[in-house]
């Protein structure tokens, strides 16, 4: 479990992170979402002891990161874009990290294979593409077979196949009981993966909930097209709905499909289309962060 308890970081007069409090639980993938500059990276670095918090506490398994025994065997982290010395080969990089983590170097080659870098194991990482460096970062994080994974924008540089691969890897990790905390500035990118969501804006956590709760809060919209849109508009409004239009159809929220059908029937307007749209999570996210 990862816990941020009133984490605060100030740089001079600027509060980069302001009393951020949230939890990432075992068996779940927690998305840490915020626009660029919202304080995501600073918060993750405080969790990992790379940045000292001005106040508050960052706990991993109820301990500060620096107090963990063999931290690389408990927490794997993917930070920045492919951290490695460009003059080292991928295999040598992982061997160096294996020594640091006190894990068996025999794990290196299977890991390179697992992340799809076996063919490039003896190439210098400076010659790797961005996507390859990200895969090497993931291998570095997995080297100690940690229970907890912390990833900062890990999909940067990955192609669609790589993103799908990473998504499956993280899903499997959580399903096996691991804790995954992953940051991104794109909710749509994470919507297929995460169970819980923490949204940060202006350094403050503005929402912490399950994705299902966030989706329910977004409200369901109905797309309605009929012979007389104006009469339908007024009828729906009279019934208490919010009505907008995209120029082709009415977008109605606050009514069920059954209500819409009944109202249209009573208004004597034939319907040509009545469909339900999934809540637009990106819009929910942007609404939350733009209020700050």
């Amino acid at each position, binding site marked *: 479990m990862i816990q941020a308890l009133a984490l605060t970081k100030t740089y001079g007069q600027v509060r980069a992170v302001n009393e951020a409090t949230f939890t990432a639980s075992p068996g779940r993938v927690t998305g840490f979402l915020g626009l660029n500059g919202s304080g995501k990276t600073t918060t993750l670095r405080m969790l*990992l002891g*790379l940045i000292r918090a001005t106040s508050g506490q960052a706990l991993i398994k109820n301990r500060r990161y620096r107090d963990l025994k063999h931290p*690389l065997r408990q927490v794997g982290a993917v930070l*920045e874009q492919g*951290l*490695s010395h*460009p003059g080292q080969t991928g295999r*040598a990089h992982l061997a*160096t*990290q294996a020594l640091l983590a006190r894990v068996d170097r025999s794990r290196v080659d299977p890991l390179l294979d697992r992340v799809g870098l076996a063919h490039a194991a003896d190439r210098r990482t400076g010659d790797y593409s961005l996507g390859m460096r990200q895969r090497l970062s993931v291998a570095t994080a997995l080297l100690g077979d940690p229970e907890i994974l912390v990833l900062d924008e890990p999909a940067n540089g990955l192609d669609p196949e790589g993103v799908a691969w990473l998504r499956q890897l993280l899903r499997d990790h959580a399903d096996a009981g691991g804790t995954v905390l992953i940051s991104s500035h794109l909710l749509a990118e994470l919507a297929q993966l995460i169970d819980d969501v923490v949204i940060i804006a202006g350094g403050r956590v503005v929402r912490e909930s399950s994705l299902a709760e966030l989706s329910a809060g977004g409200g369901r919209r109905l797309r309605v097209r009929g012979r007389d849109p104006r009469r339908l508009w007024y009828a729906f409004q009279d019934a208490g709905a919010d009505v907008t239009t995209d120029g082709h159809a009415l977008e109605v929220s606050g009514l069920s499909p059954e209500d819409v059908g009944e109202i249209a029937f009573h208004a004597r307007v034939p319907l040509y289309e009545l469909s339900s749209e999934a809540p637009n999570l990106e819009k929910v996210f942007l609404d939350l962060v733009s209020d700050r």
Partner: protein
Amino acid sequence: MIAVLRSEVHRSLTVRSGWISMAAIVLLGLTFGWFSVDFWSLLAELGAFAIAVMNTGQHYQHRTAVLLYLGQPRRLTALAAQALAAVVLATAVAVASGLAVLVTGAAHQFRSTLAVVPLMALYGVFNATVVRRPTWLFIGYAGWFIFIEGLVGKLELPLPISSFLKAGGGDYHSLLIFAGWTALAMVAAIVAVHRDLTSD
């Protein structure tokens, strides 16, 4: 500490530019040691400084310090291991490069140089921990050496470079002065190593 030490030594020996530089120092020392023991002393001492600065500074330059501190979050332990790794590598390079000097019979200069080399390695690690940019450090020290120690001090003032140059020739007093500078750099490094590692 041992894990960091092993990891640092492995890293230094598997970074291509790193082992090529060390091999070049050994070859140069073996070649020129026949003709000038003073040249070998200077090469071994400056080589120790360069090895230490590159090994430490490149962690910040290439951001791998993040990986180091994730593996060893107690930064003083990490710093101690880095210092020890630099001492081991620099001393090994100095010994290997100085075999020709030993053969020529200049055992006294060999010993006095080997007394300075570990201190130079430590001095390099501590400086790189404070400055974090190898290039800035090298340029800064080049300027410092020319203008402050050379033009102003005439290499006579008890300043770092003047001290180690004399210490390499067997001047015990200068060795103590340089040890003092190294201790000062260590204090600065102990403070500086705790600075935040931001994403730049």
